[in-house]
């Protein structure tokens, strides 16, 4: 008896919504629009995988681990090839990662400095103008950075690289096997660093701006200098957000094509693990642009495989970054 009463009490009131037909159609259209991103992403995956099929079937996993990219006569051995091609993506994949990591390593301190300046150091009006300027840099097309890298940075950068090599050559990163400093992963990393700094700075700035004012005021009331306040309040609060921003930058750097195309010498036969000052690099995106024009059908298929690998890597990096950034945003609220 008593149990019945209790169940009656806790049954929630059900509100029936009877939607008009026009609303049903409208919501259907909105759902379709919302799912467009998902459909397109799966479409990209599906089509790239299908087009890469011939090469993936012929080479299997060695497509991703092989160290040589050689087009040969464009026929498989089973088709009676005299000069069989080998497609190994490892040097390009590693090269992409290497230049992206160099870029992020240079960009993070710069972005943090810029974000700190805009949030805490500059007067409000100048800070606003500076923010607009930094955001505008994010909109500069990559072809402009390509021109810059090729005509401006390369001459100076080669001198800096040579300096690093002669004075700090005992560090394995700065060793070279031959003296070609112009089109190295270091140079590509520098170009990418300027390109992704605004992205990381924008994310960091938003996180800095969302540090609770009572924490900052509290620190200042306790007599903290700006540095003490930043060190003990701002940085701990925004550490994961900056990490997320850095990963967004990493994703952008991995996928950048044209700017890298002009400043990086691709090396198809071996992986250049850490010699970042030497003109032997790799980049998946740049590989696609440089080989696409003259490729035979089999190599085109291999380039689709390269695009697929690039797509999956950037997707994974971006997913992690988004998860980090949105979880910090949620924690704040």
């Amino acid at each position: 008896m008593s149990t019945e009463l209790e169940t009656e009490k806790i049954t929630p009131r059900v509100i029936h919504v009877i939607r008009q037909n026009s609303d049903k159609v409208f919501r259907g259209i909105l759902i379709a629009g919302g799912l467009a991103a998902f459909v397109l992403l799966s479409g990209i995956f599906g089509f790239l995988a299908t087009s890469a099929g011939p090469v993936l079937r012929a080479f299997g996993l060695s497509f991703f681990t092989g160290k040589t990219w050689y087009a040969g006569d464009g026929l498989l051995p089973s088709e009676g090839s005299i000069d069989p091609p080998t497609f190994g993506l490892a040097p390009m994949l590693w090269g992409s990662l290497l230049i992206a990591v160099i870029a992020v390593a240079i960009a993070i301190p710069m972005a943090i400095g810029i974000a700190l300046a805009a949030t805490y150091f500059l007067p409000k009006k100048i800070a606003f103008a500076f923010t607009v300027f930094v955001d505008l840099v994010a909109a500069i097309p990559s072809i402009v950075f390509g021109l810059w890298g090729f005509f401006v940075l390369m001459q100076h950068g080669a001198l800096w690289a040579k300096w690093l090599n002669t004075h700090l050559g005992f560090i394995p990163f700065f060793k070279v096997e031959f003296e070609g400093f112009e089109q190295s992963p270091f140079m590509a990393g520098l170009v990418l660093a300027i390109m992704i700094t605004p992205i990381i700075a924008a994310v960091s700035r938003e996180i800095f701006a969302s540090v609770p004012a009572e924490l900052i005021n509290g620190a200042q009331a306790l007599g903290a200098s700006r540095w003490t306040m930043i060190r003990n309040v701002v940085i701990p609060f925004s550490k994961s957000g900056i990490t997320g921003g850095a990963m967004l930058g990493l994703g952008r750097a991995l996928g950048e094509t044209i700017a890298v195309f002009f400043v990086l010498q691709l090396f198809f036969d071996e992986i250049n693990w850490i010699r970042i000052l030497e003109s032997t690099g790799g980049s998946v995106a740049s590989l696609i642009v440089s080989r696409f024009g003259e490729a035979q059908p089999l190599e085109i298929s291999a380039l689709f495989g390269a695009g697929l690998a690039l797509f999956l890597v950037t997707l994974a990096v971006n997913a992690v970054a988004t998860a980090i950034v949105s979880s910090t945003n949620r924690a704040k609220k």
Partner: protein
Amino acid sequence: MSKALSDTPTQPWKTVDPEFRKQQLITHLGTPVLALLFTVISPMAGFTGFCVTWFGFHVFAAALLAKYGKKPKSYANAFIEVFVGVTIFVFVAFVSTVLWPVISNGMAGVSHLNLLFQDAGKVGADASLDKGGFGHAIVGSALMIGLASLISVPIGILAALYVTEVRGKLTPFVRFFVQAMSGVPSIVAGLFIYSALIISGILQYSGFAGSLALSILMLPTVARTAEEILRLIPDDLRTAALALGGTQWRTVRMVVLPAAKSGLITSAILGIARVAGETAPLLLTAFGNNVLNVNPFSDSMAALPSYVFNQMLLGGDNDMARAWFATFVLLIAITILFTSARIVADRMKRN
């Protein structure tokens, strides 16, 4: 007494001693001058030498200021100030070396206005600047960007409306996939259109294929900024419209969208600015063309960025001059788009 009881807080920690300001000013302005002098008289030559010496002087001066200045602070605090100053300087210096060549080399083309209006049909490599131009690339860019906006702006706004109006179970997934899509490398978008439409023979190399690739890149930018804008519309407006008996469709069409109009225009402009400079996907889809082509559905089409790319590969002096001028035009267009978007968004936020 009356001061302590006044309504406005006085914020005594914010008042800065003018004497201290003076010392700061001397440090910040004095060190570059010293560094410049040092660069001139010492073997540390050139821009790099100037930067290095300036940095050294500045750290030294900041430490001195911290120790003996009017308002002694910790060395770490002085350091962070120098660090922030140096990052700003390095970034602005790098960016100005990016922009300066475009401006100075681009200005050389201003006296040859034929470059803006003619196409490159009857002009060979390295022809003098009086002949031909890249009018066809400007028209191609405009057509492709226009088509891409026609495709991606409505879809992007629909996706944003799903998140802010329907608020269904799929909301986190929609947001996640839109965010994930914003990371798709531009070259992959080109490869996708190439494999889906061009290999299969549905389209040839054409402006339309190019604009499809651009719209893939544009969609997430539009969707994300539109979502932010729609969030700014107060829920009171929606509930009021619903309470008056409006269906959801009429609420959105007659209340939400008109209120968000200028913001949605911003999102479209930001999307355009995002793709206006894209080169890589166009190389695989629109391919590029030397003559004017105004039909996006047949035959290949040129665009400003891919024109610059091809001129760079030609590499002659006059080819490069054309490339710089085209870059100059592109950069001006993007700056105008971007600042107008900023102004509209700023005005909207203030309202």
